[in-house]
């Protein structure tokens, strides 16, 4: 029984500790169809793709490719079936040549010796299909290419294996507008040769240019599928938003003096960012991945260099050139990647909590062990960190408890300005609520919090106002009374030019 579908996913569910990433999702793709897969950060797009390529296995559901039921999808099977993906952060081997990258897992060889001439010949053929054979030299090392051309190589790799189904995951984020045009041309060529395409992008205007259909996910659930002719950007945005948080954590607070003012901060990733934080405030910072949120956090904290701009703390101009100055100015950063940036995993709870304050609690270099121990015990109790004792290494704790250790270390350092970058990422629901309560408690006691998150409902649930970043700029400052998910998302997504915003 042949039909027109290249892919049919039926009733797919996937559960991760703390999150239902996908809930009973159906997805289908016809031959020669270009379908946009859209949704906010964390809506489940990547999980769906990873299940399709075999990187994850679904907890429930059935996968049909070319009308054939696949019992257990693995990366190898998925590749054999002709499914290939082009990811936004290109997965290329920079020291190998273009040709080697294109054919990395299937180098033409005789008795394990790679046949160079046939490799080059085949690479040229593939590049020719993309009409890049005269522009990109197959002998060139990939690291010497521009980022955009590296993107072309990634695409060449994807189509080289006679792909029947190509997934583009945010492909244009590294491309210039000219190359984006080229990409669209390539996509329509592929479409003509009956290749099916899944196109993931936050740039909705692109979707209207090349896709046949738009498929919207929200909170791991299917929302709607629309023919592209029958919809518009605003309508799609309205389908993407509307997620709900179980409880509202907002409590009204006393707003105090201005404690942090950032003026015109610029560096490679930041184009002129200004903002203010007041005592007792929780301010959200929303933006898509890559909008510069994390870079702004790191720049304020002195972890990355800034090229120009001023930072005032408590009204005084401060030169925060390194993290130590930041800490002594009562700043703190709860980094995005807890395991790689926030914690020394092999050290104990006690040592992690005391890390920023060893300077303070030691005399002539000798640590006051009594204070060290008491501090650790105090914050383990205060934040209810679940650990058998303070000597346990933090790698043995759960995600939520690890995050509490990171918060504890800044409480111990007497921080007053907390920059929290995705603090609830990868922690379970219970721990999330505890983290919100801690934030409220901090703000109530006069701390200021800059809360960075990709998850809008949690920002709307707890923040006094929300700043929106887009392409390295703060493009909106929205007070609580004016919260509107569609509006916020539009600011984050749209590429239109914005007026200068007063983000105070």
């Amino acid at each position, binding site marked *: 029984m042949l039909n027109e579908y290249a892919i049919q996913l039926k009733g797919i569910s996937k559960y991760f500790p703390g999150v239902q990433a996908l809930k009973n999702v159906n997805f289908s793709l016809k031959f020669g169809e270009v379908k946009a897969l859209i949704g906010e950060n964390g809506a489940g797009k990547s999980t769906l793709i990873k299940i399709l390529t075999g990187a994850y296995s679904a907890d429930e559901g059935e996968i049909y490719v070319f009308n054939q039921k696949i019992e257990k999808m693995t990366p190898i099977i998925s590749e054999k079936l002709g499914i290939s993906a082009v990811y936004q952060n290109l997965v290329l081997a920079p020291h190998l040549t273009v040709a080697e990258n294109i054919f990395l897992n299937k180098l033409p060889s005789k008795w394990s010796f790679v046949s160079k001439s046939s490799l080059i010949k085949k690479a040229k053929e593939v590049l020719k299909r993309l009409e890049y054979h005269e522009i990109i030299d197959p002998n060139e090392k990939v690291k010497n290419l521009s980022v955009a051309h590296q993107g072309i190589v990634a695409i060449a790799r994807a189509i080289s294996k006679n792909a029947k189904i190509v997934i583009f995951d945010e492909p244009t984020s590294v491309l210039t507008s000219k190359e984006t045009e080229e990409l669209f041309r390539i996509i329509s060529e592929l479409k003509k040769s009956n290749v099916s395409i899944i196109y993931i992008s936050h740039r909705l205007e692109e979707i209207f240019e090349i896709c046949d259909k738009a498929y919207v996910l929200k909170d791991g659930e299917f929302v709607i599928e629309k023919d592209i002719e029958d919809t518009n950007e605003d309508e799609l945005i309205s389908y993407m938003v509307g997620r709900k948080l179980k409880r509202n954590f907002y409590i009204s607070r006393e707003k105090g003096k201005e404690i942090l003012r950032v003026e015109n901060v610029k560096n490679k990733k930041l184009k002129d960012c200004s903002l203010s934080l007041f005592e007792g405030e929780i301010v959200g910072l929303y933006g898509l991945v890559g909008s510069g949120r994390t870079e702004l956090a790191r720049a304020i*904290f002195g*972890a990355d260099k800034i090229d120009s701009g001023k930072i005032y703390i408590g009204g005084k101009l401060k030169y925060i050139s*390194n*993290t*130590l100055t*930041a*800490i*002594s100015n009562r700043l703190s*950063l709860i*980094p995005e990647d807890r395991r*790689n*940036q*926030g*914690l*020394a*995993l*092999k*050290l*104990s709870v006690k*040592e992690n909590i*005391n*890390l*920023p304050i*060893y*300077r303070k609690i*030691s005399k002539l*270099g*000798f*640590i006051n*062990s009594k204070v060290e121990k008491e501090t650790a015990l105090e914050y383990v109790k205060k934040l209810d960190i679940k650990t058998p004792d303070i*000597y*346990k*290494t933090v790698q*043995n704790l759960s995600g939520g408890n690890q995050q509490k250790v990171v918060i504890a*270390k800044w409480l111990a*350092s007497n921080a007053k300005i907390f920059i929290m970058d995705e603090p609830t990422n990868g922690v379970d629901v219970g721990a999330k609520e505890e983290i919100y309560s801690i934030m409220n408690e901090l703000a109530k006691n006069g701390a200021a919090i800059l809360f960075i998150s990709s998850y809008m409902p949690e920002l709307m649930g707890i923040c006094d106002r929300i700043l929106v970043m887009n392409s390295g700029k703060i493009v909106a400052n929205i007070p609580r009374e004016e919260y509107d998910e569609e509006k916020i998302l539009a600011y984050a997504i749209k590429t239109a030019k914005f007026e200068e915003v007063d983000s105070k």
Partner: protein
Amino acid sequence: MKKIKLNTQIILFLVVVALWIFLAVSSEYFLTYSNIKNIMRQMAIQGVLAVGMVMIIITAGIDLSVGSVVALVNIMLSKMLANHFSIPLAILIVLIVSTSVGLINGIVIYDFGVPAFIATLAMMTIARGTTLLISGGSNVFGLPRSIANFASSDFLGIPSLFWFLIITVIVAEIILRKTRFGKYIYALGSNPEAARLSGINLRLVTYGVYALGGFLWGVGGVLETTRLWMGVPTTGTGYELDAIAAAVLGGASLFGAEGSALGAFFGALVMITIYNGAVLLNINPFWQRIIVGIILVVIVAIDQFRKKRSKD
């Protein structure tokens, strides 16, 4: 983790006890006072170097220049003493030189971003070359008698050389456990980015740990000079490998953040016991290194296996 660290040392301790019982039964000379003193003298230098090495390994670093710096110190000190320098002054000078060499390693590693393995490999050949240049490739004689006397002297019934090791181990343990610098060493080894974001000056920690290493290579070189009673430009070859082996035997992980000075001490003790026992049992000396190599692999493999199991 606390438990695992303890276990590594307990295993090692059991290995030492087993070796000692075996050797005590096999050779009536092994447990004599003079042989034990002999073991202590042999162990002193290797132990001091192992302690320096373990501190560097805890930062997830490595120093391959150990043996060459020992030789450089040996030749410089011998030259100066043969030319009737005052002994304390000469020792002070060589310790400053060796500490500076360590500091340079730290600078090359931190500021120039050269991997520790390469930076100290370069220093290894540079220091060895300098040693050969200074000595012209030949041994240096004519050192005062008092130097040799010191090597064979005792203090409170224990060889004077061994006291250096005792002090080094105690001071290093205190640094690692009780001081800010010690905590920073572990933090650097566990996660440099987290350490930096906690306001720790990684530059100073890196300088400090390599300079401290250099200082200890200097101490090792001075002790070596008292034992040799001359300057030998080829001395110290392979000492870095012995030091790394002792540190790893003692529970240090080359991935950083694990290890202790006491562990390195026991690691050195295992190795010296094997060398000493092999001589007593008339085993072909070439076998010694093979045996040490096998024990190194076995102990670390057991340790890894146990860690994996405790994780599951």
